[in-house]
């Protein structure tokens, strides 16, 4: 099956117009010694029917979270995606468009990005948002390089309680740019603020904390921000946008840049991507912000319209002096988040956050009643928490799967010293019955 509409007649008329007798002449400038002298070794083409069957079979080999009760989070969350999201992002006027370079025929996408930017500013309490970044991990890396440019300093301080894959990605980026990454330890699941104070210096470009952090603990961001600002370093807050319905906004505790992963805003878990990286910052940093920004303007008749703006920061104009190399971003995911946040509205963002928190706290309390099981940390938490169990968490997870429960993330995977711990996430989707089921199943295993 292919999607080429040409008839033989079309082809010969076109060749005639070009003045050649065969298509191969158009490739005569490719040296014959490198041309492929065989067919590509690929499976034979499939009809639509065969393709659907084949892909359905592959999809069927995966066990989905529809088939299990999931308490797995660790950066990717099983939040409810309302129907409106899929219906809007499935409109092909949106999804078959390119980046809105021709503003007059791209007002739909441009206005939706402008609305997205406004929503992200509202949530994070900061002034400026870009149009999106790839994901939470690369957003942290971009925030670090942005901070380095702004401060002309080369050292990045990040808490070990930040998502391990975000730190790993940061280190890859930083290494190649000659930035030094220093990690701050945590005690009792919370970043050691005193250690930040000791580490931060006039070489520090930024201090990066996640809130809630990888263990679900709510950090004292204001104290961390203060420690960074003491040495004129920037403070970068990596946040869960759903939590911002009730948790303090980065703008409220002195963050200069907020970044994070917005998968929870109407985007399926999708085996890890595409998700949605976001970044907001204070007004004065706008010209060092990476990625696209949409701005309001007027047309030649004075009507309001939207356009990609501040492009002098970007690679297609600034080339090697650009603020980042990012070009394509996650536009359709940003549209999903825009629809999702509009669906929730002012009340909904609070209610979904409150439900997550209430259910997570209920789960934690009930689990703690099981002999030998206890929450690891004392810090306040939102929708995720770590428990210590007498049974090896890997064994425990396998056991829970027997009861169709995806039981959380054994922390030993990333923190060998925490190999007795399991990270459990509870979203608004989990019911009391499901949580009670987890407790019963777990009790039977310890």
């Amino acid at each position, binding site marked *: 099956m292919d999607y080429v509409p040409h008839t033989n007649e079309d082809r010969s008329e076109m060749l005639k117009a070009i003045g050649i007798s065969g*298509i191969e002449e158009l490739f005569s400038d490719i040296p014959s010694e490198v041309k492929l002298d065989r067919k590509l070794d690929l499976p034979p083409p499939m009809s639509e029917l065969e393709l659907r069957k*084949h892909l359905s079979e592959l999809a069927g080999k*995966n066990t989905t979270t529809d088939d299990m009760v999931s308490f797995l989070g660790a950066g990717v969350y099983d939040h409810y995606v309302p129907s409106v999201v899929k219906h809007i992002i499935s409109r092909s006027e949106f999804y078959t468009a390119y980046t809105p370079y021709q503003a007059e025929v791209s007002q739909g996408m441009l206005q939706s990005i402008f609305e997205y930017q406004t929503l992200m500013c509202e949530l994070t309490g900061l002034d400026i948002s870009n149009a999106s970044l790839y994901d939470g991990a690369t957003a942290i890396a971009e925030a670090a390089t942005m901070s380095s440019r702004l401060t002309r300093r080369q050292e990045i301080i990040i808490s070990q309680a930040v998502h391990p894959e975000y730190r790993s990605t940061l280190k890859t980026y930083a290494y190649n740019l000659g930035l030094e990454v220093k990690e701050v330890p945590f005690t009792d699941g919370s970043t050691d603020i005193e250690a930040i104070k000791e580490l931060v210096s006039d070489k520090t470009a930024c201090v990066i904390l996640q809130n809630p952090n990888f263990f679900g603990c709510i950090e004292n961001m204001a104290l961390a921000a203060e420690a960074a600002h003491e040495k004129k370093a920037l403070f970068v807050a990596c946040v869960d946008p759903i939590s911002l319905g009730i948790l303090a906004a980065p703008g*409220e505790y002195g963050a200069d840049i907020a970044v994070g992963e917005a998968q929870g805003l109407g985007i399926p878990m999708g085996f890890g991507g595409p998700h949605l990286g976001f970044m907001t910052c204070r007004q004065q940093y706008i010209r060092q912000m990476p990625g696209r920004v949409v701005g309001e303007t007027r047309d*030649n008749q004075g*009507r309001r319209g939207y356009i990609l703006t501040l492009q002098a920061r970007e690679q297609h104009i600034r080339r090697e002096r650009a603020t980042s190399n*990012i070009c394509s971003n996650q536009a359709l995911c940003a*549209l999903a988040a825009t629809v999702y946040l509009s669906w929730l509205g002012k009340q909904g963002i609070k209610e979904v956050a409150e439900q997550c928190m209430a259910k997570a706290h209920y789960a934690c309390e009930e689990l703690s009643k099981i002999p030998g099981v206890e929450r690891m940390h004392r810090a306040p938490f939102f929708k995720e928490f770590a428990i210590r169990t007498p049974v090896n968490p890997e064994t425990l997870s396998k056991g829970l799967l027997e009861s169709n429960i995806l039981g959380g993330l054994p922390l030993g995977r990333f923190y060998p010293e925490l190999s007795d711990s399991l990270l459990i996430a509870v979203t608004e989707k989990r019911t009391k019955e499901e949580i009670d089921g987890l407790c019963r199943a777990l009790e039977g295993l310890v």
Partner: protein
Amino acid sequence: MPGIGGISMSMPLIFEKSRPGRKAYSLPELDVPKKETSDSLPEWARRKQDPSLPEISEVDLIRHFTELSRRNFGVDQGFYPLGSCTMKYNPKINEDVAALPGFNNIHPYQPEELVQGALELMYEFGRDLCEISGMHEASLQPAAGAHGELTGLMIIKAYHESRGEGEKRTKVIVPDSAHGTNPASAAFCGYRVVEVKSDERGGVDLDSLREVISDDVAALMLTNPNTLGLFDENAVEIAEIVHNAGGLLYYDGANMNAIVGIVRPGDMGFDVLHYNVHKTFSAPHGGGGPGCGAIAVKEFLAPFLPVPVVEKQGDRYVLNYNRPQSIGMVKGFYGNFNVMVKGFAYIRSLGAEGLRKVAETAVLNANYVMTKLKEYYNLPYDRFCKHEFVIDSSRQVKHGVHTGDIAKALLDLAFHAPTIYFPLIVREAMMIEPTETESKETLDAFIEAMIKIAELAETSPETLQTAPHHTVVGRLDDVTAARKPIPRWTPPEE
């Protein structure tokens, strides 16, 4: 039909439609004890001021975004000859299979045995990408083309470092015709960018290349066919020059649509390439993303690929993180999986025959349109093109009509504009890429529109200078937008 939709009213923002107390959402009754935030959270952890999210009913929400969609132009709305972007038709079956719950409702940290289908798909897709490019091993982690470039360069850097030449090799050579992402990615990888000129045939000028080549070169980045749509006939010689100096060759796969099944970058001597799965393999662009910038490398570079790598062990697929020479991760998890599903579905639909036909037809279409237009527009490089070509408006400029005017006039005629003012080495450039999925009738209609515009440039230049006239907004003021940025909505002062 002029423009799209013919709607011209100023469109309110969703915030302007908000009314206190209205809502679209519903959540189940809370079935566990409610936690007062004041009880569970210390004061310092709590939000002080509620975010001003819009309050709107579901029907008005749907109408708002539906109306916005009507103000947007995609491939399904019409011809989209945006050069370098490969705006081909996005098959609907690919959307359907990518939306299967088995691909969407899976968590990246689920045990491997519960995601064997996803891993198998990634493994097979990676193998296909290697076969199509003549490479050895792939990574699907990069999220977009530029991200693939950066990853490829990091791999090159790691390779040089492994040979003790990391300190020495500090330069990356980029032709002056390159995509802007090439120099930006090189800089983001800590390299110094050196530009080489193009020769009169539009290829890399070999003398200029020899001048800058030395043992401090880490790599040359090349798009072939290049951004002029021209195949660099000296590709093999260029590879030799760079390799002889100990440098590596990076292939920017943005233009793979011209050569799939015909020639493979690996066979031309390239060591690393990235694909734009959202171009060559038909995954939609989503209004700017998400994409998939998968990379593939020759065997000697495979140890440096990002982790994890999907491997096959017997009948089982695993994620291998234990690759000691790896550059590390460049993104969370495994890449934009959903985009991979679409690219994989596309390759499986077309097979080897279909992919070759893609390149042949894309090149036929481009040459056909180029032949028809060169009578009316200046063609700076008059030779067979590949999947795209570049003309300029130097003839129209005499009448005061610029490339930007021509682009806007096309919008009035219900076509998307070509890529304009790029590549930078052609003044007033228009880069036209028809793709293989466009019929002769569509191409003829576009040709006719371009001829009409060329005529108007002579007879009525002011019509073009003030275009577009039939779109939902007229020409927008980008200068003021950049000078005094308004990047968010703020409520009017009471």
